C-alpha cells in the first residue's frame, strides 16, 4: 500500500448541495471514492491509498485533468484504488462530481 495526498486549486467551487457521495464498490473488484464538501474553499484535496507502487506521476496527471475538466473546488476526496487503472479512476471521479452536483 502506498499513501499520498495531492492538492490542487480549482477555479470554481463545485455546484450542488450534497455534502457527500460515494462512487464504486470495493467488493466488486472496483475502486471506491468518497467525496466530502468543504464549503467556501477552492482547494481540492485528494487522499490516495493505492495498491500499485510508483504511479504517483500518473495520479498527478489524472487529478490535474479532473480539476481542469470539472473544477471541483472545495472537494475532499478519498480514494481506495484497489488496483484500478487510471482511466477507471478518472471515470469514477467524474461520476462522483456529477453526483455531488445533483440536486438532492
Amino acid at each position, binding site marked *: 500500500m502506498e499513501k499520498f495526498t495531492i492538492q490542487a486549486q480549482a477555479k470554481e467551487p463545485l455546484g450542488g448541495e450534497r455534502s457527500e457521495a460515494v462512487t464504486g464498490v470495493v467488493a466488486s473488484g472496483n475502486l471506491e471514492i468518497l467525496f466530502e464538501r468543504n464549503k467556501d474553499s477552492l482547494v481540492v484535496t485528494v487522499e490516495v491509498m493505492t495498491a500499485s507502487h510508483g504511479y504517483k506521476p500518473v495520479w498527478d496527471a489524472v487529478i490535474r485533468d479532473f480539476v481542469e475538466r470539472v473544477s471541483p473546488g472545495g472537494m475532499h476526496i478519498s480514494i481506495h484504488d484497489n488496483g484500478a*487503472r487510471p482511466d477507471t479512476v478518472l471515470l469514477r471521479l467524474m461520476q462522483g462530481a*456529477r453526483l455531488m452536483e445533483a440536486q438532492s
Partner: protein
Amino acid sequence: MTDWTKQKQERARRLEAAAPFVSGKVVEPGNVTALLKSVICSEDRVCLEGDNQKQADFLAECLTQVDPADVHDLHIVQSGLVLSEHLDLFRLGIARKLDFSYSGPQSAAIARALDQGKIELGAIHTYIELFARYFVDLTPNVSLIAAVSADRNGNLYTGPNTEDTPTIVEATAYKNGIVIAQVNKIVDEVPRTDIPGDQVDFVVEAPRPFYVEPLFTRDPGAVTETQILMAMIALKGIYAEYRPRRLNHGIGFATAAIELLLPTYGEQLGLRGEVATHWALNPHPTLIPAIESGWVQQIHCFGSEVGMDRYMSARPDVYFIGHDGTLRSNRLLCQNAGLYACDMFIGSTLQIDLAGNSSTVTPDRIAGFGGAPNMGSDAHGRRHISDAWLKAGREAAGSDGPLVRGRKLVVQMVETFGEGMKPAFVEELDSIALARKLGMPLAPVMIFGDDVTHIVTEEGIANLLLCRDADEVEQAIRGVAGYTPVGLARDRAKVEELRARGVIRRPEDLGIDLLQADRNLLAARSVRDLVTWSDGLYAPPSKFRNW
C-alpha cells in the same frame, strides 16, 4: 506432342492407388491413414480444413500418422492453423511450407517453429486473399474437409458451419485435385446438399464429431463500465453522426457493449431503423436483444456459433437459412460482403502506433489476420454510394478536388491500457520488432493507419479523416491515448486546438452523461439474460452457464 492431361492422369493414378482402402466413396476410419498415404505425394499442396471455427480434426490426426519417409515437405494452404496436430505436421517433417490466415491458440507455437526454421512461411494472408490464391497459384492438390453428414454418393451437408468448405472444394475439385471429407454421420439422405457429391472423392465417418470452438460469445457479465462508456461515445459520436446502416462488428468486448446498448442508449438517441440494420457478422449472442427489439433487418454470417443454431433457425427473416431450416454461412461471400457492401467496420485491437497502424501481434506470438484487414480497409473498387460513405469521403477530402469519392468508416476501439496495465498506444508496434527478429520482409500489421478513420478510447474519439498531416494524426492519437506514456507526451496546446476543430471529441463535447455509464445500461447483464431475450432458443455452451 504436348500432353495436356497430366493432372487428369495423375488424379486417376492416385484414385487407383486408393482403391484397396475404400468401398465406393466410403472409407473406414481405420483405413484413413493408408488412404492419405496413397493419395498424397511429397511436396503436394494440402488444405487440411481448419476454418475459423470448424476443424477436420480426425483427418488432421490421421495425417500426422503417415510416415515422413513416405510423405514429406507438404505445403499447407489453409485459413486456420489452430490445432496442435497442425503444428505437429511441421515438427514431424511431414509439412515444410505454410500459407495461412489465422492461428489463434497456436500463435506462440507458430512463432517458435518459425524461429527454429521448422516452418518455411509463404505469407500470412487475410481470408479472401488466401481464397483468391487458391484459384491462382496456391491451388490444393488434396483437400481434407469436414461436414456434418454425407450420403454414400459423397453429397455433403455442412450444417450451419459451412464456412470455407465450398471455396476449398471448388478450387480442388475443378483442378483435378482430390477431396476427402470427414463427417459426423453417413446417412441415406442429406438434409440439404451444401457440396455436390461429384466434387467429393471419399467420405469417412469420424469416431467423434468435428471440433468447433465458440469464438464470438462475450459474457455481458464481464462488460466493464469503461467499455460501456466507450460504446456510448461510439454510438453518439459515430453511429449518430454518420448513420451507417450496413456494417461489421469485431468480436471484442467493446463492440459487444455497443450491441448491448443498442436497445437502451441507441433507443434514447433515436437510432433504431436509422443505423445498423444490415450486417455481415458472425452470430454474436450479444446482438440478440437488438434483434428482438426490432433493430436488425438482415445478417449474413461467416460461420456459425456454438449455441446459436436453434435461435437463428427460428429467425429466418433475419438470417440466411436453407430450405432444411438451418443456417448457411459462407466465409468467402461474407468477407466479400464486409469488404464491398459495408459502410463501417468497428473493432478492437491490441496496439496502435503514432500513425494509427494497429496490430494484434505481441512479442513471440503470430496470431495472423483472419478477416479484419478486409473488413477494416477501404475498398478502392467500390462504386456505389451511401450517405455514410460519402460523408466520410467528404471529411477526408476537406476542400480539395471536385471529385470526392467515399470512404469506408474504419473504427478502432481500444482501452488505453490493456491487460496487466500494458499500454495500448506505443511508439513502435511489437509486430515490427518481431518482423525484424524473424527476418520477415513485411511486418504483420492488422490495419494500416491510412485505412483507419476513427480511434475510440475511454478518453474520446480521434477523427483521423479531419487530420491534414502526419503531425496532426500523431497529436490526435496522443490526445485520446489517456495516461499511457504516449498519451502523457502529448502537445497539450495542439490537442486543445484539434479539439476545438472537432478532430478530438471528449464525452463532454458529445453531451454524454457519465452517470449513465453504468452496467444498468446494458440490455442484458448476463448470459442468462441473453437466453431470456431469445425466448429460450439460445443454448449457451456450458462454460458460459453459471446458473
